[in-house]
């Protein structure tokens, strides 16, 4: 039953992890792995408090552990300067500096200062390229009270990876938040009759096609913790879910049940997959133990559709879509891996997760436990909501512009701040990145064709 075959042409030339790519931290991270993450909404709330804390802290012992979220300037951003970053004049050094600058701006936490004297964050060091490429950068902030050094080396052809890595390290050090520059985005592209799966960097660069099935394929989704993804393909004339390992470039059949196989979502620990199947005659949600290849049916609803499951960061809940109230709405499935789960599910079905919208679809649980979804009023827009046990407390917040376009298919960035989604205007679909903290949207992919159903990598990885 398990099919393994080489992906054709494109995969072979496609993405390879840069060999010999080494990153080392010059200073031991004060912001150790045990940082309690705050939700994005909380950050704004606590910024003022932290500024106060930082002022007090500035006069005290240097080097104590503290989560630095504040000290943002009036625009809510750190101003950075790369004036003292010495480039050796090579094309690679200029490329590195350009990508690093662009990544820091894209992170949303930084803006460029007019000069180093006017900056709150200074990047100093050396960038060299000879037989190999290397960059050593010391970042200092809080008026020089805190600093940290990072070094990256790579082959000369992997400068882009090195710059992304440096940006994430600087972002993590200064803000305490995970960066997103090194992450990847999968999506569907239609340039002719069929569709294919594509991938690009978080800044939209290095876009490449990963499949050449010459058929319909949809719903690519990263497998947490692996350089691999699931997707649905009509390769054989019927739908099936396949796993693609990007290291080995192998494809494996995971779910080829009769009827519909779609909407795969792998649990944060990588062991289970929620999936939508119609093998029983109805469209229902199941969960598969990926090692044992065993299925458990989670819903059994005649002529009611379930779709779009997404796991909570702790793997203990599934948010999904169900249209029993005639319109599709979000519901929560508690403890899908426990045998008594069905009873709890029945209790939670009494009311949708959020009300007040004609439709709520395509939910995506973010790394901080905030759900992004597509809601419909007169048009489709992207909303975020922090699920509470009392559904009346679940007030969604619209984060996409009201500009006459439709916004759909949200997927969280690993920074818990940005969301990639589809923007449709005049039947043309492009990919854009939204900022939940208010920066203007950034266009990701606009090439000729239709680009949709994005999935952002690394949602549950604490880098």
């Amino acid at each position: 039953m398990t099919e393994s075959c080489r992906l054709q042409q494109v995969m072979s030339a496609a993405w390879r992890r840069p060999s010999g790519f080494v990153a080392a931290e010059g200073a031991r991270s004060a912001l150790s792995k045990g940082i309690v993450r705050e939700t994005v909404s909380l950050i704004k709330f606590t910024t003022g408090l932290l500024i106060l804390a930082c002022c007090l802290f500035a006069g005290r012992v240097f080097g104590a552990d503290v989560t630095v979220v504040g000290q943002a300037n009036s625009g809510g951003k750190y101003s950075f300067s790369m004036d003292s970053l010495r480039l050796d004049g090579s094309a690679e050094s200029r490329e590195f500096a350009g990508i690093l600058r662009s990544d820091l701006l894209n992170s949303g936490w930084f803006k460029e200062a007019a000069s180093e004297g006017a900056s709150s964050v200074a990047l100093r060091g050396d960038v060299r390229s000879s037989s190999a490429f290397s960059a050593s950068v010391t970042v200092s902030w809080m008026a020089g009270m805190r600093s940290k050094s990072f070094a990256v080396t790579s082959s000369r052809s992997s400068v882009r990876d090195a710059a992304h890595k440096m940006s994430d390290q600087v972002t993590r050090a200064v803000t305490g938040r995970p960066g997103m520059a090194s992450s990847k985005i999968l999506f569907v592209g239609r340039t002719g009759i069929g569709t294919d799966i594509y991938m690009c960097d978080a800044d939209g660069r290095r876009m490449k096609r990963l499949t050449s099935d010459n058929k319909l394929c949809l719903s690519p989704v990263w497998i947490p913790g692996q350089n691999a993804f699931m997707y649905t393909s009509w390769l054989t004339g019927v739908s099936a879910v396949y796993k693609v390992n990007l290291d080995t470039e192998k494809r494996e059949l995971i779910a080829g049940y009769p009827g519909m196989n779609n909407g795969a979502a792998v649990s944060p620990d990588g062991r289970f997959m929620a999936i939508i199947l119609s093998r029983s005659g109805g469209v229902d949600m199941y969960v598969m133990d990926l090692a044992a290849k065993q299925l458990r049916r989670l819903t059994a609803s005649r002529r009611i559709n379930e779709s779009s499951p997404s796991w909570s960061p702790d793997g203990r809940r599934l948010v999904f879509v169900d249209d029993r109230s005639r319109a599709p709405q979000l519901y929560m499935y508690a403890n899908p891996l426990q045998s008594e789960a069905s009873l709890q599910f029945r209790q939670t079905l009494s009311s949708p997760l959020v009300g007040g919208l004609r439709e709520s679809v395509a939910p995506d649980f973010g790394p901080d436990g905030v759900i992004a979804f597509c809601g419909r009023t007169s048009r489709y827009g992207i909303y975020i909501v922090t699920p509470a046990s009392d559904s009346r407390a679940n007030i969604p917040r619209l984060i996409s512009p009201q500009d006459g376009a439709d916004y759909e298919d949200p997927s969280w960035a690993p920074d818990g701040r940005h969301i990639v989604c589809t923007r449709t205007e005049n039947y043309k679909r492009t990919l854009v990145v939204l900022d939940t903290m208010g920066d203007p949207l950034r266009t990701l992919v606009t090439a000729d064709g239709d680009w949709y159903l994005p999935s952002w990598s690394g949602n549950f990885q604490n880098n």
Partner: protein
Amino acid sequence: MKNSKMANVGMLAAMAVAGMFVFGCQSGKKDTAGGVDGSAYRDQIMSGEYISGDIPLYDGMRFETLNKVEDVNFYPVYFGYDTYVIPQNEIEKIAAIADFMNEMSDYLLVVEGHCDERGTNEYNMSLGEYRAQAVRDSLISCGVAPERIQTSSYGEEAPADPGHGESAWKLNRRAEFAFYTR
């Protein structure tokens, strides 16, 4: 053997079309009149068992090993907006396919369900599946063995007409038929 059979396909198809006015069978023995609402089943959740009336799909087809029959074409069955109920005037098409399947006893069939572009992608994926299953049920009631018929929904992703208006949409709300041999 196979080639001579292929040569007869066109004639058989023509016979089947002629026969569809003579034969005829139930449009569906189940709740195909239930429409998208299906409210009669709203309370039947979480039993974990097949609900009576369901005909579980057959799990024995291995599509990676089957041969697609390229030269047999039947007209698509068209549907109304947001429904999987087979219109009365489309039933004859299904009867013709049932006759053909009963004649070509080694053929397997995939009923492909499609939708127009209105509504969400995921909703249309389900609606396309129900359209395919409604046609499958109808074929079963015409005597075709359930294990010979598979369903596959394309949702709104494979329109017959890529336009944006009712003239295109009415061509896109359809079930198509793909035949296979082992």
